[in-house]
């Protein structure tokens, strides 16, 4: 197992290196002179010259990469040109927001997805199964930004039950925070709920036909006990590892959801930064999230490894 861990760790470094090259390249190669873009409407030539010097824009690409990578290794992810805040500060400011959103989304997804999956597996081929499948497919097929806008119009404007947008810190006002986050979390979570539902369903189906379940049934145990105690526990293993990986996937979903609901998290930060040519922000945030994703991947592999006795030794 130690060998396995070491092998996996060894792959992280080159992967992160490629991530850095990928995102750096994409940003720096964006069309349009970045200094002109950053100089704004007034287009002052002296400002443009200053920005070119500040960001080493007249130097070759590999030198610029070196400056940036060097900074990263020293813990300096650069500074947002637009508002002059260090990228590290921006990340720390917005991380709790996105983490909260993603966590709420995952919880919603688990609650709806897993239960739908269980119901669908246990009541296979009945109307329940069919309904659960429809729910799953709906979750996967609806564009989340469209769903978000429709929900805002219904719950915020027409009914007035929930705020239309914005974010309140949970430490300031927990109720307002939850009210603001519930819709975006739902929008973000429903696609993942669909995925979870399917995985739960197929895992449950496999397990329900397994020998030890038949034994439990033969013993005369109540069906609910069979399902919840024996089948579910084993079916949940792949589902849990999936949840860890989903965090990275959800980030893509946050891009649109946060834009629609004006939640100041990572997704919105990245989109705005791409359009504003705020390179350091995009590079820093993507590098950070990639590192988190890769780490979670590693942990998920480890967890699977530990849980699955067949892989050990």
């Amino acid at each position, binding site marked *: 197992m130690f060998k396995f861990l070491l092998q996996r760790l060894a792959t992280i470094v080159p992967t992160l290196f490629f991530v850095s090259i990928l995102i750096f390249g994409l940003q720096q190669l964006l069309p*349009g002179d970045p200094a002109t873009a950053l*100089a704004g*409407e007034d287009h*002052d030539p002296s400002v443009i010259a200053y*920005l070119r010097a500040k960001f080493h824009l007249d130097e070759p690409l590999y030198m610029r990469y070196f400056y940036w990578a060097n900074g990263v290794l020293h813990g300096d992810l650069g500074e947002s040109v637009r508002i002059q*805040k260090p990228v590290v500060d921006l990340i720390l400011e917005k991380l709790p927001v996105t983490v909260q959103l993603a966590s709420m989304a995952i919880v919603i997804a688990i609650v709806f997805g897993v239960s739908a999956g269980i119901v669908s597996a246990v009541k296979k081929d009945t109307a329940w199964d069919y309904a659960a499948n429809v729910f799953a497919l709906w979750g996967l097929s609806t564009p989340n930004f469209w769903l978000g806008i429709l929900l805002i119009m219904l719950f915020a404007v027409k009914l007035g039950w929930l705020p239309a947008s914005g974010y309140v810190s949970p430490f300031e006002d927990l109720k307002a925070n939850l009210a603001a986050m519930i819709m975006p979390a739902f929008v973000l979570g429903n696609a993942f709920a669909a995925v979870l539902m399917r995985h739960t369903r197929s895992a449950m189906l496999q397990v329900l036909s397994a020998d030890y379940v038949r034994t439990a049934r033969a013993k005369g145990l109540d069906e609910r006990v069979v399902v919840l105690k024996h089948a579910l526990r084993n079916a949940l293993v792949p589902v849990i590892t999936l949840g860890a990986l989903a965090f990275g996937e959800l980030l893509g979903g946050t891009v649109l959801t946060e834009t629609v609901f004006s939640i100041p998290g990572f997704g919105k930060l990245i989109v705005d930064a791409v359009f504003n040519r705020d390179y350091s922000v995009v590079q820093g945030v993507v590098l950070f999230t990639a590192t988190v994703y890769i780490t979670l991947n590693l942990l998920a592999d480890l967890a699977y490894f530990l849980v699955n006795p067949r892989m050990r030794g």
Partner: protein
Amino acid sequence: MKKIFLYPLVAALAVFAGAATAQTTLRIGLAEDPDVLDPTLARTFVGRIVFNSLCDKLFDLDEKLNIVPQLATSYTWSADHKALTIKLRQGVTFHDGEKLDAAAVKFNLERHKTMQGSNRRGELAPVTSVDVVDAQTVRLNLAAPFAPLLAVLTDRAGMMVSPKAAQAEGAHFGTHPVCSGPFKFVERVAQDRIVLERFPNYWNKGAIHFDRVVYQPIVDASVRLANLRSGQLDFIERMAPSDVPGLKGDSRFKISRIVEIGYQGITINIGKSDQAQKNPLGRDPRVREAFELSLDRKAITQVAMDGEAEVGNQWVAPNNPWYAKNVPVPQRDVAKAKALLAAAGVPNPSFTLMTPTTSDAQKIAQVVQAMAKEAGFDVKVQSTEFSTSLDLADKGQYDAYMLAWSGRADPDGNLYSFHACKQPLNYAGYCKPEVDELINRSRATTDPAARLKLFEQIEAHVAKDRPIVYLFHRHWLWAYSAKLSGLRTVPDGLVRVQDLKFN
């Protein structure tokens, strides 16, 4: 017996006391997230809205675009108009307690001119030096007379920050700005909110009726409006024109509209690069005239802006005191357009209209495309991201460019950088010595009648050469809670908190 009265009395007192100490917060929804909150470095329009509450300036504008005192009380031009002496208000302090005096003003103006990355350098270029005459008087020396100077000082170039804080923070001043406005900086969460709280020693504290102001950037106009409707915001700027009919009937809200001091126009590459020669519009002024004649400006404003704009043909709006009345706004004339094209030998000219991806620009471009088609033009709408479009325009790699300008108080701010030879915003590449001479003369004299005459002459040239086909001037649409009163509607589109209050 007495106790029965005591409890309700105490309760009532508590309620009143609570109400008296309850904080009044004004929540304003902005259309974008401001950039850095440093008047020297700032470059966005929304930043100026925040500055209005945060940083006072030497002068301000009133509803009729007159210059009125703010940090300065009066001014005098020297006889040769090469020096402007400004008298400062007594007893003004910055948020950190430092005094606002002539030395502070000198520091600020020099900071605007010399700081690395300063966006105010071009605006203050005519100022060669600043002298401290006495503690409350400062003199700006110019190389040559420059009439727009006062208007420049009503914007960011006239904003004064605390020298002590500026020196301490250096380039990072924008993260904790210390100014002298009615509200001081509390916190900023990027893309979420900017929180300001009342500055108790503000010189004009009688005009301030809020304890806190919170600015929330919400890019999507319908979401911004939804926030206003649901009561989370008290005020929103730049409401979408299409939302006006829906809100009009709602007595809880009021709508304000002001004609902007900027414009929406189509810039034509007539000489910025070689591409101007390949561009049918750039080559032949008759083709440009035909293009302008193919457009029905009124219809464009109706369809693309839901009527929320004023048609125009100049760098200032028709209701602006500086509007040159000698050239009327042309009416649509498709027959004449076709005739001109035939005379020019290009019955079906084809060109690309570079259009930023904002929804307004896209709409206008599509309407223009459809209208011009009737005269024989084949307009290709090329959607380009805004940052990229600025760069392409700078390089002259475009035929026509759908560009709006937010506008400056003095018409020179809408004119000089665009139509004078080789100026940074002269994307059209327009260069005519006679026009340059007229523009320079209009900057040099402070006599309004003389300036207007010069503007008329400039307009005669611009209307004929068409480096920019001016289309219209948008309405700034503000929507706000009916509980607010005292709103001052200044055409620069900035929300002013002075005199604004909840009823």
